């Protein structure tokens, strides 16, 4: 049986009941870890990720220091039990690439000049995976950076667009990703419509690509609101705690 023949859309709805432009449910919790300077738990459907931020802190080995600004490091890592077939611990080529593009997705909003010679470490652990972990990781990391007090111009929001049964749809889950025709993860500064990550595989016409990009932009705006709200709540809580 050919992969393409699987029916992913029925009566205008996707297999999990979503419409074409509908995100999976999102849950955000800020400050879930004690040791990290900032942290965020992020759920996107069945994806469960945590991001932690340490820094600015001493960069070593020293010869990697940048005399003019902080160096951002990003480590995307999957827990062995986060996927269907156990993943061997340690970085593989996929996680190396995702770490790079995720770092570059966040890089434009961090004001690195404030902390020369330091490192800002961003760690993302994927605890459960259902397609879209890199976008969930970037969303979590963006909030964790803010929670850690890292000076930022804005938040970064991220989502993927895909193509299933010839339709451009938002935020593929694992089944759609496996049997679909294309995937396109995007990260944006939602308020300024600035694209900070853009990847694609599969096959899109130029028109589908442009439509997808707009879809992503709209979704990133929604995610941005959720990120903001989560940070705001956390902030009020800590004020509350302070007063208590």
């Amino acid at each position, binding site marked *: 049986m050919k992969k393409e023949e699987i029916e992913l859309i029925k009566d205008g709805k996707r297999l999990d009941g979503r419409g074409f432009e509908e995100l999976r449910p999102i849950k955000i919790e800020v400050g879930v*870890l*004690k*040791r*990290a300077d900032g*942290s965020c738990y992020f759920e996107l459907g*069945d994806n*469960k990720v*945590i991001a*932690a931020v*340490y820094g600015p*802190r001493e960069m070593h080995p020293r010869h990697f220091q940048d005399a003019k600004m902080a160096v951002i490091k990003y*480590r995307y*890592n999957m*827990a*062995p*039990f*986060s*996927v*269907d*077939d*156990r993943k061997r*611990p*340690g970085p593989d080529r996929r996680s190396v690439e995702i770490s790079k593009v995720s770092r570059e997705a966040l890089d434009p909003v961090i004001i690195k000049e404030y902390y020369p010679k330091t490192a800002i*470490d961003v*760690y993302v*652990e994927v*605890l*459960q*995976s259902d397609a879209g972990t890199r976008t969930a990781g970037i969303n979590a990391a963006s909030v964790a950076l803010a929670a850690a007090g890292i000076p930022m111009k804005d938040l970064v929001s991220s989502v993927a667009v895909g193509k299933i049964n010839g339709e451009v749809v938002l935020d593929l889950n694992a089944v759609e990703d496996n049997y679909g025709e294309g995937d396109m993860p995007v990260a944006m500064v939602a308020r300024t419509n600035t694209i900070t990550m853009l990847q694609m595989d599969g096959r899109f016409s130029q028109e589908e690509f442009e439509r997808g990009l707009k879809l992503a932009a709209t979704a990133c705006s929604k995610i941005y609101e959720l990120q903001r709200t989560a940070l705001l709540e956390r902030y009020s809580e800590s004020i509350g705690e302070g007063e208590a």
Partner: protein
Amino acid sequence: MGFEIMEDIRKDYVYDLIGSGKRVDGRGFREYRAISVERDVIKRAEGSALVKIGETVVLVGVKLEPGEPFSDAPNEGVIMTNAELVPMASPDFEPGPPDENSVELARVVDRGIRGSKTIDLEKLCIEEGEKVWMVFIDIHVLDNDGNLVDAAALGAIASLLNAHIPNEKYGLSGESSLPIRDTPVAVTTVEIGGNILADPNLYEENAATSKLTVISNADGTLSGMQKSGSDGLKEEEVAEMVEIGIEKAGEIRERYLVT
């Protein structure tokens, strides 16, 4: 340098406080921090548990996959225990291959389960000499506020108790629940200035010079022990630590593992 001085001061503070009969967080010497065990949190895993002891957070996932048995035990399943001290969990953890601390953590948890024969490995044989179930116990440390071993060991046994055998996924048939025969529980104590403290938090762990983990079973027998740290222990101290170990293990088993 400044940091080191702070650490010395903190150690002295913990030490002095204990000298006057108190712990930094107000607990009794034999008292654990709040424990919570949440099972089946990861649906990709055959078993899982999120364990919190105070602010220490460990997530354990159990996966089963068919694999080849060892040639000297052709009709037994295989246990593989692995621990990742991911850098998220502490400013002291570095990315990279497992260091001696993660190796020790994994091996102590593993020995507790193996020594007690908790898993009936012969029931995990699919085809003698050819195919058996490999049980992967992966310990993922998310936040380290001390006493990782007890949290990891508790997460491991809690995950195993709820784990199922994914026969269908691999086109096999048979019993779907893991054959679990015992409930080993690890209890760690440290010695600080002649006092024995259960469940050390991170400050206490750093102030202590010796630590003993005692793993005991439902029938009160011991199935694992590991001393660590740069100082020795007297025989009577070990005896007290074993005593506490068995007692506390009973309480934890009763409360978090009996269903």
